[in-house]
């Protein structure tokens, strides 16, 4: 079994979700999947780069992953509070109607 291909498959699923899904929560789930794929890659690189360097990379990867999750979740809550929806299509429509109102 090859973990590099497994992580590539996970990365592909995550990127597909990121590009096609319109709900912000789904975008968040896609980002989590991409982060999981990256972490899996780091873990499976450990035998070739040495245990110490692998663990250090991993700690950094997990820390970055947690920070990204926090920021996206904060944005999600703020957007939902402000506009009442988390659908990207609806958000674009709201912004366009606001622009039209300002121009008129």
């Amino acid at each position, binding site marked *: 079994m090859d973990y590099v291909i497994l992580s590539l498959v*996970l990365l592909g699923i995550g990127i597909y979700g990121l590009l096609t899904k319109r709900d912000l929560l789904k975008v968040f789930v896609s980002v989590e999947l991409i982060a999981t794929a990256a972490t899996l890659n780091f873990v499976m690189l450990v035998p070739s*780069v040495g245990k110490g360097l692998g663990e250090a*990379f991993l700690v950094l990867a997990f820390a970055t992953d947690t920070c990204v999750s926090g920021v996206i979740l904060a944005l999600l809550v703020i957007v939902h509070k402000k506009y009442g929806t988390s659908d990207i299509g609806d958000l674009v429509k709201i912004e366009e109607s606001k622009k039209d109102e300002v121009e008129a």
Partner: protein
Amino acid sequence: MILELLSVGLVISACLAIFLDEAVYSVAALAGTFFLTSMLYALSGAVFVAVFQFAVGAGTLAILFLAGEMLSEKPAKVPQKNLLSLVAVGVLLSLPAIFLSVSGQTGVFSAISFEEALWDLRAMDVVLQGFVIMTVALGIVIILHEKRKGGK
């Protein structure tokens, strides 16, 4: 054999997390992804990583469940046929990982300890941080410039 089964389950749960319509089901599938990843690490001998993955996953999922419950609008029923096709797609996607191989493992930094890597090799990390900060600063400058242009 068990690692192969875990990887098939991992890809299926990842597919379900992306393609299921209702947010709570999607988050439950993501929980499965985290759990299976953690099991995969533990069974591969990386217990340190498994514990980290489990802790980070548990925290993320607790918040995601709350957010999914609060922010999702209308519950949608999942058709059985759709679910089965998603599982089939997951099994199909996991086949290359089981039967193909691309990685050749060579030892380059194998003599470096964890402490050395974390404290002595910070240069790469600092350069990357600098790059990220520079990109953010550049983005802010461009946004401010465009705003000022729009104001005039």
